[in-house]
C-alpha cells in the first residue's frame, strides 16, 4: 500500500514545485523534503512493514503494477532522492521547470520498473522520455541540439517499443506479461527485435548510442547522473522482464544481443579513453556499462540474469557516484576539461575518494560491488558454452581501455600538478553535495564486501523472471 504513496509523493511534490513557480528556493526545498519523505516511506515499507502492509494494494495491481521490480524501484527512489539533494546547491536558479520535471522523471522511472502491464509500462516510459527531453534543454544553447538528438532518436525507439508491446497483445491476447502463454517463433523473433531496438535505443546500445554523450554532456549534472545511473539501468531491467516473458525464448535473439553487447562495450570503452571532457568521458563509460548488462541478458541463464540484475543495481550506485563526483568538481572549479584540472586530491579529498571507489567498482576491481556482478556474468558466459566463452574473453579484453581511462582521468584530475597550467580555484562544497557522495561510496563498498543479503533477493528475482 505504502509503495503507491512513495510513487505519488514525488508527483504531488512536483505539482507543488510547479505552483511555487519562480520562487525556486522554496520549490527546491519542497522537492528535497518530498523526495526524502518518499524514500523514508519506501524504506519503512521494505524493512519495517508487516506482511499485511507490504506489497501493493488492489488499486495498484489494477493499474498494472507488481512487486517483482520492487528492489529496483527502491534504488531508483533512493538515488532520485540523493540527486534532488545534490541539485539544491548545484542548480542555483532552477527556473520553473527543473524540479517539477526532475520529480516526474524519478517517479515515472520507478513506476515503469514496477509495471507488469504493457500499456502502463509504455505510459510511464514515455512520460519519462518526454519530460527528460524538455529538461535537457534547461541550459539552453547547445543543450537544444542535444535535446533534439535525444527526442528524435528516443521517439523512434518509443515507436519500436509501442509496436513490440502491441504485437505482444496481438499474439498473447493479454496486456499482463505475467499471463503470457506461448506463441509462434516468428512472432517472438519480431517482438524481441522490436523490443530490443526500442528499449536498446533508450539504453544507448551501439549503433543507436549517438544521443548519449551529447545528452549527458549538455544536461545539468544531476539530470545526467539520474539518466546515466538510474534510467538507463531501469530500462535494462524492463528489457529483461519483457524479453524473458516471451515464450519460447529464442537462442538466435540472445546471441544477437550478446554480440551487440560486446560491440557496445568496445565502442564505449575506446571512445571514453579519447575524451577530454569529464562528462562526455562518463557518458561513454555508461555506454560500456550498458554493454556489460546487455551481455548478461544475451547469455540468458539464471546465473547470468542474477549477475545482470546485480550489475543493474551496482550501475545505479557506481555510475551515480562518479557522476556526482564530477558534478562536485564542476561545482567547485567551474571546469570540466580534464586537461585544465589537476592536483585536486588535497583540495577535495572526499570527492577524490568517492571517484576512486566509483571508478574501481565500475572497473570490477575486488572487493568492490562491481567485481561480483561482472564476475558472475563472465562465469555464466564461460559456462554457457558455444561461442559465449569467446565472447566473454572479448568482453573482458575490451573493458581494459575503460579501466585505463579511469586511471588516466583520476591521475590527471586528482594527482598531477602541471606547472604550466594555473591551478584551478576550488570553492567550498555544500553539505548537500558531500553527503550523497559519502552515502554512495559506502554503499559501493558494503555491497562488495557483504553481497550475500542482496544476492539472495536477486536470486529470487531472477528465478521469478525466468518463471522458476
Amino acid at each position, binding site marked *: 500500500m505504502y509503495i503507491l504513496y512513495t510513487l505519488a509523493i514525488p508527483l504531488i511534490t512536483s505539482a507543488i514545485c510547479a505552483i511555487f513557480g519562480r520562487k525556486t528556493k522554496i520549490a527546491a526545498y519542497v522537492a528535497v523534503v518530498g523526495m526524502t519523505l518518499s524514500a523514508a516511506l519506501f524504506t519503512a515499507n521494505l524493512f519495517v512493514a508487516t506482511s499485511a502492509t507490504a506489497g501493493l494494494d488492489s488499486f495498484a495491481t489494477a493499474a498494472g503494477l507488481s512487486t517483482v521490480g520492487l528492489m529496483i524501484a527502491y534504488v531508483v527512489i533512493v538515488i532520485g532522492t540523493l540527486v534532488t539533494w545534490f541539485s539544491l546547491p548545484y542548480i542555483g536558479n532552477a527556473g520553473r521547470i527543473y524540479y517539477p520535471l526532475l520529480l516526474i522523471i524519478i517517479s515515472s522511472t520507478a513506476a515503469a520498473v514496477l509495471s507488469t502491464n504493457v500499456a502502463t509500462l509504455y505510459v510511464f516510459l514515455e512520460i519519462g522520455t*518526454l519530460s527528460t527531453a524538455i529538461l535537457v534543454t534547461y541550459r539552453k544553447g547547445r543543450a*537544444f541540439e542535444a535535446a533534439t538528438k535525444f527526442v528524435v532518436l528516443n521517439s523512434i525507439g518509443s*515507436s519500436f517499443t509501442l509496436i513490440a508491446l502491441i504485437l505482444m497483445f496481438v499474439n498473447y491476447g493479454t496486456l499482463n506479461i505475467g499471463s503470457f502463454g506461448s506463441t509462434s517463433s*516468428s512472432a517472438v523473433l519480431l517482438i524481441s527485435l522490436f523490443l530490443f531496438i526500442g528499449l536498446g535505443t533508450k539504453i544507448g546500445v551501439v549503433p543507436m548510442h549517438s544521443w548519449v554523450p551529447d545528452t549527458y554532456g549538455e544536461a545539468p549534472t544531476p539530470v545526467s547522473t539520474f539518466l546515466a545511473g538510474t534510467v538507463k539501468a531501469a530500462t535494462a531491467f524492463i528489457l529483461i522482464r519483457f524479453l524473458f516473458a516471451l515464450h519460447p525464448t529464442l537462442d538466435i535473439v540472445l546471441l544477437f544481443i550478446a554480440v551487440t553487447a560486446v560491440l557496445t562495450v568496445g565502442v564505449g570503452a575506446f571512445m571514453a579513453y579519447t575524451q577530454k571532457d569529464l562528462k562526455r568521458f562518463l557518458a561513454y563509460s555508461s555506454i560500456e556499462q550498458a554493454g556489460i548488462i546487455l551481455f548478461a541478458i544475451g547469455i540468458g541463464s539464471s546465473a547470468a540474469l542474477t549477475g545482470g540484475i546485480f550489475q543493474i543495481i551496482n550501475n545505479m550506485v557506481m555510475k551515480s557516484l562518479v557522476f556526482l563526483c564530477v558534478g562536485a568538481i564542476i561545482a567547485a572549479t567551474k571546469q570540466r576539461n580534464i586537461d585544465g584540472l589537476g592536483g585536486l586530491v588535497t583540495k577535495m579529498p572526499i570527492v577524490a575518494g568517492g571517484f576512486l571507489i566509483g571508478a574501481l567498482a565500475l572497473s570490477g576491481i575486488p572487493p568492490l560491488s562491481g567485481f561480483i556482478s561482472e564476475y558472475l556474468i563472465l562465469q555464466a558466459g564461460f559456462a554457457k558454452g558455444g561461442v559465449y566463452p569467446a565472447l566473454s574473453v572479448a568482453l573482458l579484453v575490451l573493458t581494459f581501455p575503460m579501466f585505463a581511462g579511469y586511471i588516466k582521468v583520476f591521475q590527471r584530475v586528482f594527482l598531477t600538478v602541471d606547472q604550466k597550467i594555473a591551478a584551478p580555484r576550488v570553492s567550498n562544497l555544500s553539505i548537500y553535495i558531500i553527503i550523497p557522495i559519502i552515502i554512495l561510496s559506502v554503499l559501493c563498498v558494503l555491497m562488495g564486501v557483504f553481497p550475500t543479503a542482496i544476492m539472495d533477493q536477486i536470486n529470487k528475482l531472477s528465478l521469478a523472471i525466468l518463471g522458476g
Partner: protein
Amino acid sequence: METALAFGIVWVICAILIVILNDKWSTLALLALNLTIAAFLLTENDLTGALIKAVFGIVSPIIILLVVARTKQPRPRFGTAPLISMALLTLVISYLVAFSTQSQFPTGRTTESYALIALFGIAVLILVSQRSILKLLLGILVLENIGTLLIAWGANTALLSVVAEVFVVLITLTIALIALMDFAEYGSIDSSKLTNLRG
C-alpha cells in the same frame, strides 16, 4: 476486417502521397484528413469514440502547421531518388516477408502485413534520408501509426488505443517545441546544421 484493410490501404496511399507531393500544406492536410477518416473507420458506429479519435488525429497536424508557420521553412522536398528507393525497398521487403513467412506473419493476416511492411519501409526511408526535424517527425508519426494499425487489426482495446493516440500528440508537441527552440538558436530546423556536438 474490411474496415481495417481499407484503413491500411488509405494509410499507404497517404504515406506515398506525402512523399510524392512537394507541398507542406497538402502533406499536412492529407495527414489530418486521413487521420479523421481513420477515426471514423476504426470506431465504426461509435460517434463519440470517432470524434475523440478525430480530435487527437487533427491535433498533431495543427501543431506541425504552427511550427511550420513560425519557423518559415522552405517547402519540404523529398526528391525523386528517395522516392524510387522507397518504392523498391517496399516491394523487396514485402515480397521477401511474404515468401519467407507463408501467410503466418504475426497477425496471421498476410494482406494486412503488406500494408504494415510498406508503411514501415516508408517510415524508415523518411527517417534515414531526411534531415529536417519536421520531416523526421513525420517519419516518426508514420512509424507510430503502424502501432495504431495493429491495434485496429488485432488488439482493439480502448486502453491501448487511447495510450497510443495520446502519446502521438505528446511526442509531436515535444518535438515541435524543441524544433522551435532550435530555430531560435540556430535559425534552422535542419538537423544537419546542428553540428556543435558530435555524439
